[in-house]
Structure formats: structure tokens, C-alpha cells
């Protein structure tokens, strides 16, 4: 398997009135072709910013992004245009991420027209219909508008729109969090089927651990812009090392009322991501925190093969 995307020390800072907001801070990882990297973390931890920076919807502040080993960090406008063909994004909210004035076929067909991939109207229609069929949208909906459809169907439009260019890398930014649980499963299965058939590579952003477990090969856990733990999905669920990961895992609901388990609750305030002080960013909420944690920021270390954790006191 070859590495499709590699991220080296990626940083994305925002200037805000109060200082510099460290949305993504020194993140490194790589994704193999045809696999899924899950990115988990609570709201505001920078996971969406990470996704957007990767596909150049936001310019990175520092660091490198490599696609097929070639740097795509500071691409020019024209190169970016070509790049977009290979990197697409499925957005979180299927209600607001579709232009209300565009019919289903217009929304799906637009990328094909932008890249001049179809010669005439017939070919455009054919490609749109094929893609609609792929994502399970009935052909009769081609002239419908997003507001006439339910959330699941809208998200299928979003997926079709991203897939129609047959990109190699797709950032999925919480694609199911706005949907009903029953529809969530449908969409996740669809995405997995498509991956199996076409070899897509996903970066799957979510705050829902049960979702990420379902779909990911590897998982990155983010906390306030930093990757705190990174390992193969199975490994993470069996032997998590970071106290934050442990807290997240203990929050997954178990569908059985007889099972009583120890919850690992987080206390305290989230540290501000604006000009964060040196030291572990999780220290304020961590029950294992010591003076060392407050002084020195822990590096990501490989604790066991392919299992990385940034903690002074890993749970192992």
C-alpha cells in the first residue's frame, strides 16, 4: 500500500482580537491509499479546520501537505484548481451546504462542467444519473430542489457532488452528524461500499466514536488543535493510552441497561486555544496531571508499534 497523503507539522493559526488562535497545532500523520483515517475530538478541537486546510479551503500557516509524495502546501491558483479535482469534501450539514437555488442535477453536474469533463448535455445528464444511481438517489429526483428532500437524500447529493469528479482523497467532515441514526447507518454503509469499489481514501472527521469505529482503519484523537493519540482503530478501542481518549471511550453509550460501568468524567474548564501556555493542553481537565504536565508539552511518542500517544503519564 502506498501513502496517498502525508501531513508534516501542519499548523493553522487564526488571528483573533484576543491573540492567535491555535486551531491546528503541529499535526503530522499519513494516510494510505484506499484507507480511512478517523479524526475524533470534541467541538472546537480543530478537526474541521484540519480537514479544510488539507483540501486548501483554508491556507495553512506552517507545515507541509504532500499528495503522492509531492508537496501541495503552497500551490498556485491554477494548480489548486487541478488539485481540487483530486481532493473533495463532504460537508457536515446537508441543509446548509447545498445551494438552495440549484436542482439536484445542477448541483451534481456543476463540478463536471467546471472541469470540462463532459462534452455535451447528454453526457452530462448521463454522468449525473450514473452518480445519482451510485449514491442511491432515484433518477426522478434530478429536477428536485434540496428543500424538497429529507436530510438523508440531501447528504446523498453532497456525497454524489463530491464523488462525481472521482477524486482520490475525500475529506468527510461529520457527514452523518446531522442525520437520524437510521439514516446515519445507511450513509456510512454507502461510503464504505463506495470505498471498497473505487478505492477512495477518506479522512473522516467526527465527534462520534461509535461512528469512527465503524468506518476507520486508523484513528487520530485531537484535543485543542493537537493530536493526542494516533493508532489503528482496533488498537485504540482495546488499549487507549491517553486519559482524554479514555474519557471519550467511556462516553460511548452501551445499548444495555443492565451494564453498569465506570464513567471517566472530565472536570474543569477547557483551556483556551488562544495563545495557549506551554504544557499539556489537557492538563486542566486531567486527573493524572502533574507539575510536569503543566510545564512541558508532551511529544507524540510511539508506545507500541503504530500506536502514538502524547502524554507524560500514558495509561499502559
Amino acid at each position: 500500500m502506498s501513502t496517498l497523503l502525508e501531513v508534516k507539522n501542519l499548523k493553522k493559526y487564526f488571528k483573533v482580537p484576543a491573540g492567535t488562535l491555535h486551531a491546528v497545532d503541529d499535526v503530522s500523520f499519513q494516510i494510505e491509499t484506499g484507507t480511512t483515517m478517523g479524526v475524533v475530538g470534541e467541538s472546537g478541537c480543530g478537526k474541521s479546520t484540519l480537514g479544510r486546510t488539507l483540501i486548501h479551503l483554508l491556507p495553512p500557516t506552517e507545515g507541509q501537505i504532500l499528495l503522492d509524495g509531492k508537496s501541495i502546501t503552497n500551490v498556485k491558483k491554477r494548480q489548486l484548481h487541478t488539485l481540487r479535482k483530486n481532493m473533495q469534501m463532504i460537508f457536515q450539514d446537508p441543509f446548509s451546504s447545498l445551494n438552495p437555488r440549484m436542482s439536484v442535477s445542477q448541483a451534481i453536474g456543476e463540478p463536471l462542467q467546471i472541469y470540462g469533463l463532459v462534452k455535451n448535455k447528454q453526457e452530462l445528464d448521463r454522468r449525473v444519473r450514473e452518480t445519482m444511481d451510485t449514491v442511491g438517489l432515484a433518477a426522478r429526483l434530478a429536477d428536485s430542489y434540496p428543500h424538497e428532500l429529507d436530510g438523508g437524500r440531501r447528504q446523498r447529493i453532497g456525497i454524489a457532488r463530491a464523488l462525481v469528479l472521482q477524486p482520490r482523497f475525500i475529506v468527510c467532515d461529520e457527514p452523518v452528524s446531522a442525520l437520524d441514526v437510521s439514516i446515519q447507518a445507511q450513509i456510512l454503509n454507502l461510503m464504505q461500499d463506495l470505498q471498497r469499489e473505487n478505492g477512495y481514501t477518506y479522512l473522516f472527521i467526527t465527534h462520534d466514536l461509535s461512528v469512527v469505529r465503524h468506518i476507520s482503519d486508523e484513528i487520530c484523537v485531537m484535543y485543542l488543535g493537537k493530536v493526542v493519540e494516533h493508532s489503528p482503530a482496533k488498537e485504540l478501542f482495546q488499549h487507549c493510552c491517553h486519559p482524554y481518549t479514555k474519557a471519550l471511550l467511556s462516553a460511548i453509550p452501551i445499548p444495555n441497561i443492565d451494564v453498569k460501568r465506570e464513567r471517566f468524567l472530565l472536570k474543569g474548564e477547557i483551556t483556551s486555544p488562544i495563545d495557549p501556555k506551554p504544557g499539556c493542553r489537557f492538563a486542566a481537565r486531567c486527573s493524572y496531571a502533574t507539575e510536569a504536565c503543566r510545564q512541558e508539552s508532551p511529544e507524540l511518542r510511539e508506545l507500541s508499534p503504530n500506536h502514538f500517544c502524547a502524554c507524560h503519564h500514558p495509561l499502559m
Partner: protein
Amino acid sequence: MSKYILKRLLQLIPVLIGVITIVFILNQLMPGDPARMLAGEGATEEAVERVRVEMGLDKPVIVQYINYLAGIVTRGDLGTSYKTGVPVLTEVLERLPTTMILAGISTLISVGIGVPLGIAAATWQNTLVDYAASGLSFIGVSMPNFWQGLMNILVFSVYLNWLPSSGFYGPRYWILPALTVGTSCMATITRTTRSSMLEVIRQDYIRTARAKGQTEYQTIVRHALGNALIPIVTIVGLEFGSLLGGAVLTESVFAIPGIGKYMVDAITNRNYPVIMGGVAILAFIFSICNLVIDVLYAYIDPRMKSQYSTKKRKAEVTE
């Protein structure tokens, strides 16, 4: 759709009756005696009385009101001008093209400048472009029409001698008044476009358009502007409607025989039929403008269009 338009036209009837009633009541409350005014300053009591009977002003108010309404319904008669003896409808229709031209050109100017300016201001928010556009619209909105009209005459007619300073006899005469009226409308349209565009530009689907690989120009024009149009169309329609009511001051400055000037003269002369008829016609035109805006909404926004769409299609989609 046609059903909707018909419904809206029928709804106009009570509106117009209401307008006529209110204007009629206001006229009765106005001080002064039209009969005396018509008879002339030195007229005898008998002469005044004769005029009063001739005009039907001796009858009880309620009878006058019913006669007036009946005249409109049966003969389309809005009354005759006390001053000229010509039917109000004829006089208004004579002046309408002038006002229409002035309003139309002003609107074209204000939309032609205001919308691109607003788009530019929103696209490059908080840059020099934005400040320049805001400054320009601020100046536009703060200059009183009559003053700006005089300045335009001074510069373009007196100093430069490019354009005529008064009258309304052909395209050369239209430019200065249209520019004068257009400037203040332009300011409003720039501001509306800017704020509406700013709201839309922040929407998720604009990000989607960029992610699709759409060019910035197409993103702004195809994706953002289309969705920002509703408030813009509303404002343009309202501005156009109120311009039809007459840009009174501008018409006075440029000596244009438009509806605005006609109405103001009627008020000074207590020419009741002209006031009532004029207001009724203006209310009618204004309502039609509103109707046109509402119909336009449906073409701008498919969500509104689907409200008029047939049940069959709705069933097909929700199936």
C-alpha cells in the same frame, strides 16, 4: 401561478377602496372651501353657492362619497379636475409616461451602479473597495435631491454646457434628473446588496462551491448573488414604486411635468378630485409593482416557486 396572480389582483379591490376612503376622509378634514376657491377671490356669495351646487359639494358627505365610488365602478370616472375641467384619469395618464421614464432610468442607473458596487464591497469586505463603496453610498444618501439637482445643473448645464437644465423633451433631457434621483436610490441599493451578499457569502454552500473548484467569479455571481437577490429585488421594486409616486423635488427643480408635481399642485389648490384620483391611481400602480416583485421571487427562489407548483409534482418528490 396564474391563479396566484388572479388572487392577488382580486385582493387589490379592498385595498383600493380603503385608500380612496381614507383620502376622501382626509380631504373632508382639510381646512378651506374649494367652492370659494374655484369661484375666485372676489366672487359673490351667490356665485360661490352656484359653484358648490354644480360641483355637488352641497350634498351630504356620505352621498358625495357614494357618488364618487359609483362613478369609478360604472364609468371608470375618477372625477374631473376643478381647475382645468379635464378628467383626472386623462391628466394622470398624460403625465404618467414622463414619470415612468424618469423612474425607469433612475432605477436602471441605481441598479447598474448600486448592485455591482454592493457586490464588490461584500466580496472585498473591510478593504479599500468596501470603504470606497460605503463612502460613496453614504454621500449619495446624504445629499438632498434638490441640492444635488441644482449642483448637477450648475456643473453639467451652466459650466460644462453638456446637458439641458430643464424640461423633458428627449433623452438628453432625461439624464440629469435621472442621475439626481438615481444617486440616492443607488446608495440604498448598494447598502442592501452589500449586507445581503455578506450574509450569503458566509453560507456553507458558498464554501461548497469553492470546494467544487468553482472560480471565485462564478462563486460570487452564480452561487452568492442569486441567493442574495431577494432583498435586492424588494428594495429595487419599492424604490421604483415610490419613484412613480413622483420625485416631487426633482421634478420641481428640473421643471418636469410629472405626477409628483401634478399632485403637489393639486394639494395647494385643494383640487379634491385630483388628489383622490391621483392617490388611487398611484396606490394601484404601487400595488402592481409589489405584485411584480412577489412574482419575481418565485423565479429567484425555487423554494417559493414550489409553493405555487402543482400538487402532483409535490407528491412525486415526497413519495
